[in-house]
């Protein structure tokens, strides 16, 4: 550690001569609220910085004369010439363009676009998903290299990785379950989201703990005055942010599933007393920003979300209020996230410390009541309870320093995990029944120290290098890993760049998933000698080119990337699938370990982000395979979400000042599945059907077209009202959501057995219209 610190100091001294620090804050002209993610490019070059969550930027320069350009989506670009004699602090106001059309422009330097994607809320708003719901996470599948899971779910797979291999950060804190409503919605309320950053390759060393991607969801800063009420088909939400005074601003939001309203008649009608079903979902966000001094900031944010499903059935005994064979089930699950972050800015230095808490739990209860004819009363026949829980407490400390040619990030993080994969109990007739295992809570510690540096030897060349030293204490063994990260980028012209990256990633936890991620049967487990940390080596690279206005009518952004990823120590259920929520502490007996994976492919994207017609096209060609000694006779097989071709085309067209239309077209190769293809007789002469190869078949290709019309009107008091009407899966394509099979025995005698084996795909969500009403107060 000392060595690294010395290197940083040495580099600082070398580069400290004739340096000026330019820092400042970018604000909106009208509301004076800070603009997060505004781009500041220097001397018309590709070198630049973006403002942080306080709207603050800083960089160093040895030039005395400097031109900077400040731009932000939907705001007029401002150019400033500076003559520097000392460190300078700027307050820059950007004026909102009187928009007749939505401007969605990715203003990041061209080098930063390779391996990294960004989705602003304006872009996310163009891609409504099921039933018109805007979803920050599900919109990511419109990016190249990112595939969705099963139809309708919020699971995503980046570059052939598993769903658990994405580091999901909500304002810097890990979130472990991203699905509401069995995955139909993600847990991120779109009203609160400012932007989503995705890193698919060339991972900086300050990120770790997952193999395939980093997905940062950045919520709104709370410094712009805004109130919003939205009523959709699936959920309704309320959001507001307000600047209380010069130092304090807050943001709060709540969202509730409308399913609860739809099922109210079922819950309370007297006719349906004997059978009740209900599903509630809600989540809340709160964020507070406090400016201690002009250089010191404090942020505190909380997220709480819960899904609650219940079902009860009863047979009336015939006597009022007395039931026979009453059975009720309750299932609930959700996340809690909280973090407190302190940021200090001084000159070219930035220091931050974050204390965070994150938990994900699921809880299942079932009770059966019997009826005693002798005493004429109900009695508790049996009660079953099972819980699974993961809790984290983490501390992250980071120091950033920038000179003319160098940028350094150094820091560390420690995460204390408490895993309780299963805590089950059983009561029969009021007495506890002994289970053959004890509930255990496993405590593991994930520690990492990181150093990341960026060196710009020339205007065109950028070299990034990083080292992450991670110490992961598992159940019965501690693992030491060094994770090197290297990235070289070269700007071939003003509008084009090449980049190549290598990353080694470590993931010190596993997700046991029996289905699409987001479903409440998913359980996180710790690492141990038997189930070691997942490891990935990834090489990726590509080029970006911007065809400026003049050559084409409007600027075009074109990107091409290739990647190869090798994964080790993967874990999968063996053939013995556990029943729903019956995962015991002996989950270790149900798993195949030391699995391997490899994924490789190419990505292509093209976008036109200005003009009346805006278009984004993303295409991924990909192969993703897995191998476990215990599965498929040890042979490699296609990953469950391996899609050879994955194409999406999103377009938006401004019809008038008030109307616009957007469309999404998606095409993807059908998912692999295992199909029974052989029959044999068992020892007693009964037929058995089975598959000879895992994931040997493919479902039909997936494709659909969504169309959305938006009508926006500004009222007399400045209230903006928006109606969205659309159809999901407009041409009613039968995309398969799940599989079903059955055997119907036709005839059995001494000479012949005849049966029909029926294997079917269930289609889900065909040509569904939707309407959403939003008012900004």
């Amino acid at each position, binding site marked *: 550690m000392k060595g690294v610190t010395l290197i940083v100091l040495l580099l600082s001294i070398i580069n400290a001569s004739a340096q000026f620090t330019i820092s400042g804050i970018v604000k909106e002209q009208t509301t004076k609220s800070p603009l997060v993610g505004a781009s500041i490019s220097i001397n018309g070059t590709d070198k630049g910085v973006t403002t942080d969550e306080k709207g603050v930027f800083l960089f160093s320069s040895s030039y005395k004369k400097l031109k900077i350009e400040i731009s932000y989506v939907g705001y007029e670009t401002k150019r400033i010439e500076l003559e520097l004699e000392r460190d300078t602090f700027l307050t820059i106001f950007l004026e909102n363009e009187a928009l007749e059309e939505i401007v969605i422009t990715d203003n990041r330097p061209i080098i930063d676009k390779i391996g990294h994607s960004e989705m602003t809320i304006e872009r996310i708003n163009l891609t409504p998903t099921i039933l018109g719901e805007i979803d920050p996470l599900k919109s990511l599948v419109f990016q190249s290299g990112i595939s969705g899971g099963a139809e309708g779910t919020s699971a995503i797979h980046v570059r052939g990785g598993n769903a658990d291999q994405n580091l999901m950060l909500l304002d810097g804190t890990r979130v472990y379950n991203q699905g509401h409503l069995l995955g139909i919605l993600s847990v991120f309320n779109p009203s609160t989201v400012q932007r989503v950053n995705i890193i698919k390759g060339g991972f900086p060393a300050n990120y770790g703990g997952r193999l395939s991607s980093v997905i940062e969801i950045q919520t709104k800063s709370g410094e712009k005055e805004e109130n919003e009420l939205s009523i959709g088909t699936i959920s309704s939400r309320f959001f507001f942010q307000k600047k209380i005074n010069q130092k304090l601003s807050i943001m709060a939001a709540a969202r509730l599933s409308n399913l609860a309203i739809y099922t109210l008649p079922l819950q309370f009608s007297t006719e349906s007393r004997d059978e009740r079903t209900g599903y509630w979902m809600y989540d809340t966000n709160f964020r507070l920003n406090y400016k201690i001094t002009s250089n010191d900031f404090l942020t505190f944010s909380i997220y709480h979300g819960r899904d609650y499903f219940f079902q009860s059935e009863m047979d009336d005994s015939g006597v009022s209020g007395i039931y026979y064979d009453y059975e009720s089930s309750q299932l609930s699950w959700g996340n809690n996230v909280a973090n407190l972050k302190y940021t200090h800015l001084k000159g070219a230095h930035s220091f931050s410390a974050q204390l965070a808490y994150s938990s994900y739990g699921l809880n299942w209860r079932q009770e059966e009541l019997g009826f005693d004819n002798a005493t004429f009363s109900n009695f508790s026949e049996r009660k079953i309870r099972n819980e699974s829980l993961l809790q984290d407490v983490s501390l992250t400390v980071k120091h950033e320093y920038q000179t003319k040619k160098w940028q350094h990030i150094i820091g560390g993080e420690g995460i204390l995990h408490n895993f309780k994969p299963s805590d089950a109990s059983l009561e029969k007739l009021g007495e506890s029944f002994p289970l053959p295992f004890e509930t255990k809570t496993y405590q593991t510690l994930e520690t990492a120290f990181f150093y990341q540096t960026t060196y710009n030897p020339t205007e065109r060349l950028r070299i990034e290098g990083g080292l992450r030293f991670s110490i992961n204490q598992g159940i019965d063994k501690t693992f030491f890993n060094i994770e090197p990260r290297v990235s070289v980028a070269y700007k071939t012209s003003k509008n084009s760049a090449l980049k190549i990256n290598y990353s080694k990633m470590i993931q010190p936890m596993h997700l046991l998933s029996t*289905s699409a991620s987001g479903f409440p049967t998913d359980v996180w487990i710790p690492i141990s000698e038997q189930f070691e940390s997942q490891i990935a080596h990834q090489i990726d690279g590509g080029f970006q080119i911007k065809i400026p206005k003049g050559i084409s009518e409007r600027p075009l952004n074109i990107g091409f990337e290739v990647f190869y990823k090798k994964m080790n120590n993967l874990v999968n259920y063996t053939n013995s699938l556990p029943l729903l929520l019956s995962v015991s502490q002996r989950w270790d007996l149900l798993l195949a370990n030391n699995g391997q994976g490899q994924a490789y492919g190419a990505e292509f994207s093209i976008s036109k982000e200005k003009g009346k017609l805006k278009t984004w096209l993303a295409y991924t060609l990909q192969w993703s395979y897995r191998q476990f000694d215990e599965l498929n006779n040890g042979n490699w097989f296609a990953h469950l979400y391996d899609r050879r071709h994955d194409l999406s085309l999103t377009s938006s067209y401004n019809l008038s000042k008030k109307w616009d239309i957007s469309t999404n077209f998606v095409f993807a190769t059908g998912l692999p599945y295992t199909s029974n*293809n052989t029959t044999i007789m068992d020892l007693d002469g009964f037929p058995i059907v089975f598959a000879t190869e895992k994931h040997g078949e493919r479902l039909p290709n997936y494709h659909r077209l969504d169309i959305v019309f938006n009508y926006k009107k500004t009222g007399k008091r400045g209230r903006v009202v928006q109606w969205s009407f659309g159809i999901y899966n407009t041409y009613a394509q039968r995309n398969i959501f799940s599989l079903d099979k059955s055997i119907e025995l036709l005839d059995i005698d001494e000479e012949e057995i005849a049966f029909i084996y029926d294997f079917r795909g269930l289609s889900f*969500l065909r040509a569904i219209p939707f309407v959403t009403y939003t008012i900004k107060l």
Partner: protein
Amino acid sequence: MKSINIFLLFMLLMTSCDLYSPLPIESNDENPKLVVNALLDGHATNKLRVHISQSQPLVSDTNKILLANLYLDDAVVLFFENDELIDTLIHSGEGYYQLTNEIIPTVNYTYRLEVFHDDFENVKTEAVLFPEEANVTTSIRTAVAHSNKDIIRFSIDDEAAVSNFYEMEAESKVDSVMENAYISFGGIIPDVACGLGVLIFPDYCFDGESFTNEFEITNTDVTKVIFTLHTVSESYYKSYQNQQGTTLDAFQQVFAEPSTYYSNVENGYGIFYARNTVQIEL
């Protein structure tokens, strides 16, 4: 009224999901293989049951299995004990083969079957008569309050440092006739790993310790219950696990990982396993 309309609209939308498309079964290009299913039973009168057949591709429409075509009556079946040939089995009808000599299987001996047929690749499979009889320490039959059910609760002393696999069975005597009793588990959590709520379970969770398990049977007119506890080979347990997986995958899980077939027959399909048995009358 409005909310009812919205609800009806929503239900209409959701029910429109219920659409099935048949998925064709891709033809299995694999040549048919020999299927050997065999049980070496240390407790039964017929110590070795062997059934030889061939596999058949599954098709999308009606599958007709002509048993006469499937059963193989002309295979050569050799039976080895610790690599020593001890018998050549003879066909006894409908694909079943039987010993020509009486044998007494020995615990911890390895038994092997080798099967030869002109039309198929030769196959072999082996099993160890590994498990001793289960050491059942208590077995109680008690009536469940408020119901017409009996609980059969039993405890076993498991041998330490040895992997044992157990299988439960029960028969009940109703009107002087013995018949298989329907076993239910009265709400015990089904747990593949640790044996609760399943008929076949390993000793992973109680290796070397005493273990209590129970199940329920209907007691209407039952005069006698015969409770049977087998100790079985690991291959049989794996085969059972596998079949559990194949039955579960399609029903509860969206795109769950289905099972592929488990077999301990080299170059073929089927299971050869051994077992020992304890029977208790309650």
